[in-house]
């Protein structure tokens, strides 16, 4: 039995007449979970509720069994907010140190933690640079550093990769993955699906403030039986292989797209992935490429949200 570090039960949140969240029930446990949804779906509202910035109109939010609106709960929470706001005149090291001191550490311990956190986001060389002189990507890293410097058990990252360059993005993805593997509960909100997929296979999808799906990407995709997978194959003699593939269990359709490409439509992806190479082998056909454009997070997102 796994433990939920964050439990959201029957939560609704209204802003005037706009229902930002509508009777949401979900939970997050240790590891990385991707929080997905289009703009205005309620992702940031959910993170604000979990980080105690907002209160639910109905339902309850618990972080480690406590009300996140209580200050003591925040001992175990780190938040990287979406907005690009800082005490601009400060240097990165002073900004992070000051916030760590609000966790009760003395000046020396806070400084050490701030230095270590900035090193984890690869900013140790720029720690003494004023925040106002930093690029958007650097500032994102500072926000992540202040969220993890006190080693919380729950880390909430709202669009953490915004503005980062490709190398920095890969570093941050590795960092987030490492936090999850280390036992932290990490919730990452993002629009960039392949980045979320690089961090985790566990996702929560919300739209119009409602929970659309929660769980492992592949398992969620497999539940969509009315949405068969397409598998595209590049090979020689595609018509011969196509005739064989029609015999496979789960096959809905086979189309020869051109002289080298077949598209198989199946409801049993795992079985097809094993059977296709065997069928090609029996016919003496070499498979040059096999891809499934419907098995990734983007297709799941497209079906459930878009």
């Amino acid at each position, binding site marked *: *039995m*796994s*433990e*939920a*570090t964050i*439990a959201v039960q029957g939560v609704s949140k209204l*802003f005037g007449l706009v229902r930002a969240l509508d009777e949401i029930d979900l*939970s997050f*446990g240790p590891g990385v979970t991707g929080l997905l949804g289009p703009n205005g779906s309620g992702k*940031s509202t959910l993170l*604000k509720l979990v*980080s*105690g*910035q*907002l*209160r639910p109109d109905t339902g309850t939010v*618990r972080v*480690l*069994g*406590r009300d996140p609106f209580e*200050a*003591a*709960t*925040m*001992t*175990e*929470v*780190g*938040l990287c*907010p979406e*907005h690009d*706001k*800082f*005490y601009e*005149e*400060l240097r990165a090291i002073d900004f992070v140190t*000051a*916030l760590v*001191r*609000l*966790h*009760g*550490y003395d000046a020396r311990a806070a400084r050490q933690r701030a230095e270590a956190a900035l090193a984890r986001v690869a900013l140790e060389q720029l720690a003494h640079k004023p925040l106002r002189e930093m690029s958007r990507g650097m500032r994102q890293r500072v926000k992540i550093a*202040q969220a993890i410097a006190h080693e919380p058990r729950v880390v909430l990252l709202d669009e953490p990769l915004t503005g980062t360059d490709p190398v920095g993005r890969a570093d941050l993805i590795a960092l987030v993955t490492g936090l999850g593997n280390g036992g932290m509960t990490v919730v990452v909100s993002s629009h960039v699906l392949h980045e979320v997929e690089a961090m985790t296979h566990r996702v929560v999808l919300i739209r119009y403030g409602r929970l659309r799906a929660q769980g492992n990407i592949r398992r969620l995709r497999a539940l969509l039986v009315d949405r068969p997978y397409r598998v595209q194959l590049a090979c020689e003699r595609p018509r011969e292989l196509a005739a064989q593939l029609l015999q496979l269990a789960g096959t809905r359709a086979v189309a020869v797209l051109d002289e080298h490409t077949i598209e198989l439509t199946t409801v049993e992806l795992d079985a097809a992935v094993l059977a296709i190479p065997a069928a090609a082998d029996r016919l003496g056909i070499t498979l040059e490429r096999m891809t499934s454009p419907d098995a990734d997070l983007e297709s799941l997102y497209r079906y459930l949200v878009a």
Partner: protein
Amino acid sequence: MTTATAPPRVLPVSQLSLAWFWTRFHTLRALRKPATTLAIAGVVVMGLSLRVAGVAPASGIVEFYLTLVLPLFAMFFGSGGLREEVEDQTLTYAFVRPIARGWVFAARTAAAAFVALVPVAIGLVIAFDGPLVLLRNLAIAVLGAIAYTAVFAVVGLVMRRPTLLGLGIVAWEQVVGTVPGFLSRLTLRAHLRGLMELGGGDGLLGRLYRPPPWWASLPTLLIVTALVLAFGAWWVSRRELVVPK
């Protein structure tokens, strides 16, 4: 799925200690801003000019700083403090820490009071008229700075555009603060004058004006300050201080 309920790690540090750190942090931030330095320098130069030119007696300079400069600076720094952090969205960083929201408000108010106190304290030194008088005036300035800043901090909390109401309060204080009768007792200015044992001046109304006795003014100021601070802390601890998208 069960819910993890392990108690959070809490370092042996009191909320007061965290608030004291946050007060110092924001005081230094404010004092390092060029606009603050300029404003302080301006009123200090004004006091020096009055003193050197001999235009006003020492007691007049003290009155100028305690009953005019102090409320203006308290309004300027007090009403902006937490409101600016809400608008700038930097308040998020303090609210996701284990410091109670009421203490965050108290710390920001104390920082603003300290900044408002700086030019007044310098002004009181300029108006030096003996060490005991200076000490008494400094104590009154501390009390006045906290009282005024608390009032303006609450105005800044509850009003989206606090400047107009703030200026209205300053004007009310200036106009009504020396009017004979009970009405003046509804101003902080009258009670500060009561502590300084200042009369109403040489005009007709001034001669009729009687300042409240110090033994009434002191508890009045303390009680008003405590009530306003408590209200502000309660307000901050109950409200969602987030800028909607």
